[in-house]
């Protein structure tokens, strides 16, 4: 603990040494400068005239949104069902693809370090690219529709599920694995009886968690034409029907809250 002495010779306790203190100030100064620089770039690219009447625009928006046109809700059940399907089927497909990738990426189950880095590359690239970007690409390739949404969600889920699952695999207890291999089991048998039972609870938890995130993400996929309630949202916004937009918002809000509740309950029951 750094201590300095006064002129009378009594020691005073201080949290940091003078040098550390000054370095800290310098770091804060540098961070502040960086922040201001970034702020300047943003402010140069902003039309402040539009910002000045933001309050008026906002209150105008709210007044158009209220009251919500509740009769519009009955036309939303089909898109909502599509949204759920995109999320669920996308999660299932994503899990199916992530499962082998995770086993290839975990240090203790991978057949070869080169295979491991390839699997890690798949995980990273899938994680870096948002499902909306995948959807944009797939819509130009497969055409608009639910299928593009499902595949977009699946591609994005590989990275998430794969990363968490391979971390879980790396943390398993080696003893059961050793015990199974000591019986003369083949590689696949060791996987199925030694590794798999240890990671299954984590795997189920991760899958349900991802499903919950995917419900949230699939609500917007329609903005780029990949099906679901986002299509309706896009149509309503483009026709400036804000009182329909607010109905859609309420539906999304309720659905997401419900899926979050289900996922929390299931994860609680599993672990």
């Amino acid at each position, binding site marked *: 603990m750094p201590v300095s002495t006064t002129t009378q010779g009594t020691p005073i306790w201080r949290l940091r040494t003078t040098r550390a203190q000054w370095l800290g100030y310098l770091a804060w100064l540098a961070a502040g400068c*960086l*922040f201001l*620089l*970034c*702020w300047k*770039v*943003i*402010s140069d*690219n*902003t*039309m402040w*005239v*539009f*910002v000045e009447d*933001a309050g008026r*625009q*906002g209150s105008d*928006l709210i007044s158009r949104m209220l009251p919500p046109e509740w009769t519009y809700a009955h036309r939303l059940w089909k898109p909502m*069902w*599509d949204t759920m*399907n995109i999320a*669920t*089927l996308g999660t*299932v497909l994503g899990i199916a693809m992530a499962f082998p990738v995770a086993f290839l990426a975990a240090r203790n189950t991978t057949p070869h370090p080169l295979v491991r880095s390839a699997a890690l590359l798949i995980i*990273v*690239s899938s*994680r*870096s*690219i*948002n499902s*909306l*970007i995948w959807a*944009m*690409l797939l819509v*130009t*390739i*497969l*055409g608009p*529709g*639910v*299928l593009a949404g*499902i595949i977009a969600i699946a591609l994005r889920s590989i990275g998430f599920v794969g990363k968490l699952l391979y971390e879980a695999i790396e943390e398993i207890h080696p003893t059961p694995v050793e015990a199974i291999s000591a019986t003369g089991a083949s590689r696949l048998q060791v996987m199925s*009886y030694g590794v798999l*039972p240890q990671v*299954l609870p984590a795997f189920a938890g991760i899958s349900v968690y991802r499903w919950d995130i995917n419900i*949230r*993400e699939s*609500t*917007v996929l329609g*903005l*780029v034409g990949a099906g679901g309630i986002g299509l309706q*949202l896009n149509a309503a*916004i483009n026709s400036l029907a804000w009182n329909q937009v607010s109905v859609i*918002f309420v539906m*999304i*809000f309720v659905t*997401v*809250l419900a899926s979050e509740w289900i996922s929390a309950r299931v994860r609680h029951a599993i672990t």
Partner: protein
Amino acid sequence: MTRQAMARAGQWRRLPMIRDPRLRWGLALGGLVYLLLALSTIDVNWARVAEGAGRGLNFLAAFTQPDFVSRRGDILDGILESLTMTLTSTVIGVALAIPVGLGAARNISPWPVYYLCRGIITVSRTFQEIIIAILFVVMFGFGPLAGMITLAFATIGFMAKLLAEDIEDLDWRQVEAVRATGASWWQTMNHAVQPQVMPRLIGLSMYRLDINFRESAVIGIVGAGGIGATLNTSISRYEYDTSAAILLIIIAIVLLCEYSSSHVRRWTQ
């Protein structure tokens, strides 16, 4: 036959995941029915898919020769805008998330404040960034300011929730010890709560920086600034070599972020 007797007869089978057979088969049947129902609603235009397959191959081929040059100016502007948005929104978002997180921690805040802060967190977490971006673009006009506010708003929900959870399971003895010296609320926060949550707060901020960058690549689609607009244009023009270049840049920056954030986390803990 008991399991042991079966094992002796060489007919051992592992325990099922779900003990109750009725629940087990019920779940399997329900899953199957749902799958059939869900799959039947997908209508695929196979002619369109066949037509697009060539484009898909083009896209994959573009990754082998990404074109960084012909739209260099647009890409540079977009990336710069994305990075500045990421940084400012994370700083502002984290700064705003700290009070909200304190308010949303059950053990240190009174219930009206608790419910208010939990409400803010729920609203911010439920809606995707892009939906919020649409609203803010309507309010603040096109450009990175709307994007920055969107990302800051989303950051509040994310950070405040995790911060509140962290505060809820902090070591209460330290708080009591500091309180016993007669410290004020402010001093308690500063000397008992803050040192306990600080390492995780820094780690989460780094993580959120990474997420904000990834999101900033998307909200450009609705006009909120950043690389997303460039990416969107290049995809709809079928200029897949440029899109491949942008995607590669995004992946590289995310990798860099992840690498440095794992270093920072190791350094703070």
